[in-house]
């Protein structure tokens, strides 16, 4: 396992601290009104005020993100397997899949609310749509990258389809699947927030729109900070999962380091 080293985290933490100090000083020196840019100190104060409210919003957005990612990943893997196994299906769906990614989510989100109502569903759909693309593309690539000679070798040992699936195809595609999931996890929270922006009864998106409507810019910043922290945590969790699911990858990395 990679050890947690203070040295790795110290420089970025120091940079953030310096930037926050500059921000605080600049706002005070130039007497910027709080409704335009509040100083970090009042954002911290605002965080104290709204803390009792945040738990519910975080739970809502978190649920949407997790369920959305799970559905998106499942659909992505299914699509990847179909694309990999049936060549004409690949030619049929690839352009469509790529085109679907060019539609801005902010445009799609109101339509989804129209179709699925104000509940969790439209938000989950947004997250699932965001997660689907990277997972499908990388998993398909992982499956296609499986070593044909390895498959031949196992066939010479008398392996059946299911043996080859278990021994070669799934392990070959696992690291690729997780690189797709990592990208998906970075955008999932933001995706859920976009879904909530259009209309919601709970969630960080609602918290943000309310704060904005009441000119509480300090609370908007609190919301943004929470989104960042949640996204980073989700990304870290997926990264940890990837290490657990594909431990051999780490062995290769250490080995490469030893060689150089």
């Amino acid at each position, binding site marked *: 396992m990679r050890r947690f080293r203070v040295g790795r985290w110290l420089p970025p933490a120091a940079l953030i601290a310096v930037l926050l100090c500059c921000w605080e000083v600049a706002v005070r020196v130039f007497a910027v009104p709080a409704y335009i840019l509040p100083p970090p100190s009042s954002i911290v104060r605002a965080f104290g005020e709204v803390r009792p409210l945040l738990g519910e919003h975080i739970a809502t957005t978190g649920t949407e993100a997790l369920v959305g990612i799970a559905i998106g990943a499942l659909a992505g893997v299914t699509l990847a397997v179909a694309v990999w196994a049936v060549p004409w299906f690949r030619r049929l769906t690839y352009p469509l899949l790529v085109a679907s990614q060019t539609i801005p989510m902010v445009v799609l989100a109101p339509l989804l609310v129209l179709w699925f109502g104000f509940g969790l569903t439209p938000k989950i759909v947004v997250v699932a749509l965001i997660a689907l693309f990277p997972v499908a593309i990388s998993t398909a690539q992982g499956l296609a990258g499986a*070593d044909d*000679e*390895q498959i*031949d*070798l*196992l*066939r*010479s*040992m*008398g*392996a059946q389809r299911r*043996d080859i699936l278990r*021994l*070669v195809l799934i*392990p070959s595609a*696992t690291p690729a699947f997780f690189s797709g999931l990592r990208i998906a996890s970075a955008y999932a929270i933001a995706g859920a927030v976009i879904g909530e922006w259009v209309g919601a009864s709970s969630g960080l998106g609602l918290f943000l729109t309310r704060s904005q409507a009441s000119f509480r810019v300090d609370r908007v910043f609190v919301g943004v900070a929470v989104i960042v922290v949640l996204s980073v945590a989700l990304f870290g969790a997926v990264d940890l999962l990837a290490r657990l699911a*594909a*431990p*051999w990858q780490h*062995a*290769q990395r250490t*080995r490469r380091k030893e060689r150089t």
Partner: protein
Amino acid sequence: MITVEGLTHRFGDVAVLDNLSLHIGAGQFGGLVGPSGCGKSTLLKILAGLLVPDGGEARIDGSSVVGRPGRTAYMPQRDLLLAWRRTLGNATVGAEIAGVPRQEAQARARRLLGRFGLDGFEHAWPAELSGGMRQRLALLRTFLCGHDVLLLDEPFGALDAITRRDMHAWLQQVLADDPRTVLLVTHDVEEALLLADTVIVLSERPARIVKELPVEFEWPRRTGLVTSSGFIQAKATLLEALETGRS
């Protein structure tokens, strides 16, 4: 026992095998030498049951293996270790496919680890092994397939000269302890002479047999043998046969 009769195969317009026949007796070590692309690997793939020839028959111990994998232990040139399995997992993959219980397969593999120079590495990932170790692990996997007939396709081709010489001495020991019928494909005439009971020289494609040379040096054959006059003479004969097969 390996029997090949009238084997014929084409890839598109290219005739790779044309009416090829050969025989390797039980417990014998056959060395197959020929120019690259002459169809040696094709022959091995047919014997492994991976490739169905256009014509002819390939038998292992009397029964046909055409289109029937799972009767021989095949080892291609690349080690093809599964990066996601540790040493023991890679060694036992053949046994696992054959349905041998994991415990039993692993116990068998553990007993052979020392012999294959992998002691203490049973839980290493392939990425953590050296080139020679990877190749020995691939051979261990081949041995543990549980078949008498080993088909080795340039198993030491990717190794450096020193490691390769070590492997030659080592393979002789392993086979002395656990005799098998072997068909070794190589482009290295010395390797064939060091390891085989019979060396078969193939022509350019379509492959036909140019020469079949019985090798009668005493076992175990040490590296020093390479400079003896008898060895040099045998080598000259084989090189000449290779040359004949090219024109």
